[in-house]
C-alpha cells in the first residue's frame, strides 16, 4: 500500500508543479490542462522557441533511450531498428488523428493516437521478435536494421502520408508538458519492470542464458516480451513526437536515428537506466551547446568536437559514464 501512495505522490507532485508553472506563466487560472496540450503559446512566455524545441526533443530522446535500455541494457538484445518503431508510431498516430479524428477533443486524439501508435508498433515488434529472436546477437542487429529501413522506404512511397515531401498539418495537440509527463511515466514504468520478477528474468538471461533456463525461465518468451514493451514505448514516443512537431519526414527515422539512440545507451552505460537518461541528455544537448561555440569561433567545429567527445568518453570510460550504477532515485533499493 505504501508504494501505491508513492505512485500517486509522484503524479500529484507533477501536477502540483504544473499548477505552479501555470501560475508563473499566465497568472492564476484553472486551465492547468492546457500546459499539457496544444500549441506552445503558453510555454513561449517562459522559454524561447529554440529552447522549447530542444527540450521537446530531449524528452522524446529520453523515452527512446530508456525503452531501448530495456532491450539491450537489461535483456542483452542488440537491436538496430529503434527508429523504425518510432516511425511506425509517428505515422500511425499522425494518420489516424489527421484522417479520422481531425475534430475530436484533444484528449481523445491523444489517447487514441498514442495507444494505436503503441499497439501497432508492438504488434510489428512481436512479429519481428518471434521470427528473429532465435537468431544470435549479430543477426538480430542486422534483421532489425533492415526492417527499420524497409519501413522507412515504404513510408517514403505512400503518397497519403506525404511521401518524400513529408507529412504536414498534423494536429499539434502535444507539447512540452505532455512529452515531459510521458518521459517521467516511461522512466517509472521501466524502473518498476526492472525491479520486478520480469526484470530479474531479463537480467538473468543477459548474464547467462543457460543458467536462466535451468532456473525455469523461458528465454524466448521473456525476450519477446522485452521486444514488445520496448517497441510499444518507441511507438508512443513517435506519436508524441509527431503531434509536438506537427510535421513528419522519413528523413528523421533513418538508421542514423537508431544509432543515435544506441549511442545514448552506450555513452550513459549499458545496463543503467540513469545512464540511458544521461546519455540522451548529452547527445541532445551537446550538439546544440556546440552551436554557441561556433558563434564565438566563427568556424564549424561542431562535428569535430562532438566526435572527439564521443571517442574520449569511450576511451576513458568504456563502461559508459554511469557504468552499471544508478542515481539514487532510480536504484533498485
Amino acid at each position, binding site marked *: *500500500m505504501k*508504494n*501505491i501512495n*508513492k*505512485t500517486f505522490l509522484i503524479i500529484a507532485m507533477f501536477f502540483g508543479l504544473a499548477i505552479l508553472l501555470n501560475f508563473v506563466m499566465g497568472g492564476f487560472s484553472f486551465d492547468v490542462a492546457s500546459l499539457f496540450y496544444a500549441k506552445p503559446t503558453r510555454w513561449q512566455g517562459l522559454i524561447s522557441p529554440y529552447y522549447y524545441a530542444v527540450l521537446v526533443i530531449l524528452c522524446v530522446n529520453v523515452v527512446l533511450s530508456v525503452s531501448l535500455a530495456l532491450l539491450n541494457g537489461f535483456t542483452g538484445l542488440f537491436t538496430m531498428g529503434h527508429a523504425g518503431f518510432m516511425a511506425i508510431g509517428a505515422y500511425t498516430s499522425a494518420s489516424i488523428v489527421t484522417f479520422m479524428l481531425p475534430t475530436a477533443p484533444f484528449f481523445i486524439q491523444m489517447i487514441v493516437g498514442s495507444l494505436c501508435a503503441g499497439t501497432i508498433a508492438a504488434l510489428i515488434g512481436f512479429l519481428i521478435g518471434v521470427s528473429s529472436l532465435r537468431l544470435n546477437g549479430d543477426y538480430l542487429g542486422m534483421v532489425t536494421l533492415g526492417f527499420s529501413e524497409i519501413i522507412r522506404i515504404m513510408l517514403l512511397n505512400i503518397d497519403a502520408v506525404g511521401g518524400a515531401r513529408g507529412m504536414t498539418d498534423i494536429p499539434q495537440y502535444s507539447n512540452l508538458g505532455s512529452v515531459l509527463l510521458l518521459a517521467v511515466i516511461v522512466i*517509472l*514504468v521501466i524502473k*518498476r*519492470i526492472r*525491479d*520486478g*520478477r*520480469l*526484470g*530479474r*528474468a531479463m*537480467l*538473468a538471461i543477459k*548474464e*547467462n542464458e*543457460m*543458467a*536462466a*533456463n*535451468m*532456473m*525455469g*525461465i*523461458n*528465454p524466448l518468451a521473456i525476450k519477446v*516480451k522485452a521486444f514488445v*514493451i520496448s517497441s510499444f514505448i518507441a511507438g508512443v514516443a513517435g506519436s508524441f513526437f509527431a503531434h509536438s512537431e506537427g510535421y513528419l519526414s522519413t528523413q528523421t527515422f533513418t538508421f542514423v536515428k537508431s544509432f543515435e539512440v544506441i549511442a545514448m545507451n552506450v555513452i550513459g552505460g549499458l*545496463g543503467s537506466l540513469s545512464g540511458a537518461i544521461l546519455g540522451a541528455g548529452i547527445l541532445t544537448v551537446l550538439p546544440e551547446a556546440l552551436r554557441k561555440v561556433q558563434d564565438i569561433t566563427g568556424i564549424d567545429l561542431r562535428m569535430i568536437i562532438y566526435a572527439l567527445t564521443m571517442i574520449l568518453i569511450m576511451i576513458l570510460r568504456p563502461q559508459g559514464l554511469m557504468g*552499471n550504477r544508478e542515481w539514487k532515485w532510480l536504484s533498485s533499493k
Partner: protein
Amino acid sequence: MAFLEVDNMSLEFGGVKACQNVTLKLEPGILYGLIGPNGAGKSTIFNVLTGIYPPTRGDVKLGGESLVGKKPFEIAQKGIGRTFQNIRLFKELTVLENVMSAFYSSSHSSMLDMVFETGKFHTEEADVRAKSMELLKVMGIEDLAEVPAGGLPYGKQRKLEIARALGLNPKLLLLDEPAAGLNPTETRELTDLIRKIQKDRNITVLLIEHDMGLVMKICEKIYVLVQGQLVCEGTADVVQNDKRVIEAYLGVDE
C-alpha cells in the same frame, strides 16, 4: 517404478560416444553419487537430464513422464535443479537477486502488478525475498546478500549456486562437482551441508564428485562411469572393492 529413470540412454557427439547405454534408477529421498575419471561423461548425463542435449538413443523419465524433447526451462519447472561444474552465476546481480531469480516460474505478479506496485506485487516480492534469504542462511552466506555475485570468493560462489538451485524447490537436485577447487576444510563443511539439506528437504540428490572420500562418506548409492559406460553401482563398500573400478578409475586417476 523409480522416480527418475534413465533408460538405456546413449549420446554421441559426432563420433565421440559420451554416454553409452546408461541406465539409472533414482528413488525419492536418497543421496546418490556419480563418479568417474575426467571425460567419462558425467556432466554430459546432467546435460541430458536437464534437456540441454537430447539423447541419441534411450529415454529419460521423471515420475513416469518422458523428458525427451522437452525444453530445458520446462524440465527445470518440473523440479530438476542443478549446479554447473564451471560456475554459471548471474554475476552482475546481487547474491540475493540470484536466488530470487529462481522463483520466477513459481510467482505470478503480472506486468501491471509491477508497474503499479500493487499489494499482490509487494506481498509476493516480500515472500520471495524472505524465502531467498532463508536459503542464503541455509548456505551460510546471508551476510553477503547485497554483494554482486561475481565478487564472491570461489567457495561462496559454489554455495550460492546451490542456494539458487534450491530456489526452484526441486524434487531432484543435480550437483556437478560442488567441491571442485575448495580446500579440505571447505570441502568437509560443504559435504555436511549437502547431506543436511538433502535430509531436511527430503529431496533426491545426484552428486558428481571428483573427491572420492567425499562421495564415499555421504552417498547412499554410487554409480561409477568410465568412458561413457556404467561399470559399477552400489554402496561405498561395494564400489571400493570392485575390481573394475579399482582398475579403471582409481588406477588411472590417482
